[in-house]
């Protein structure tokens, strides 16, 4: 169970990324954030976001048009 869940369904670029960054601030170091989104562009965006920021994209999956991402916040 993730420390926090962000519902970004129905939001388009760049909102999923921007809201994820905000939500990550409240996640403890090495904690996890689960994000739900419907924007297909968010798949590539979250991969890039994690590469750039050093956070780890642990899992991502898709279920009927909803994408789910699990990000682990980097160590302090």
């Amino acid at each position: 169970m993730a420390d926090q869940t962000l519902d970004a369904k129905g939001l388009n670029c760049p909102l999923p990324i921007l809201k994820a960054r905000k939500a990550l601030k409240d996640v403890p170091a090495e904690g996890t954030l689960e994000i739900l989104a419907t924007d297909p562009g968010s798949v590539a965006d979250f991969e890039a976001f994690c590469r750039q920021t050093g956070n780890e994209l642990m899992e991502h999956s898709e279920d009927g048009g909803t994408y789910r991402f699990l990000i682990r916040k980097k160590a302090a």
Partner: protein
Amino acid sequence: MSAEEKSMSIIVTKGSLDWAYPPFILATTAAAMGVPVTMFFTFYGLPLLLKDLNLQLTAAGNPAMKMPMMGAHMGLPNILTAIPGIDAACSKMMKNLMNKKGVAPIEDLRELAVEAEVRLIACQMTMDLFEYSLDDMIEGPELGGAATYIEVATQSDINLFI
């Protein structure tokens, strides 16, 4: 490879509803990815800093503007853009479409940019030219001229002219 070493600057020269998006999306996303951003608002980009925004667009002279309507992509013939009120109607339609599709309004992106500590610079020369004052603007922008921007640009890895 971290993004801490890279920075970005954007010169914002246009202020219509459609042109407002690229600079704000790029700036907020870069900031979200750890890239420090400076936005320099000049000429028609300067009104994007006004407290009250009522951004408009026009289909005039814009042959690439084809909107989804009734299952197809349709443009507006230039001659029709001369009809009084049509620009306002098109702008409203665009805003409704964006709302429906979950695209953030410019006001929200701008607020996110301020929150993310994107550095906003209002071109002093344009302020004087079009008779704007800082009181008309949102909280946050500093005043600067070309030299201010050039200094920022020499230190930025990514410099965009939009």
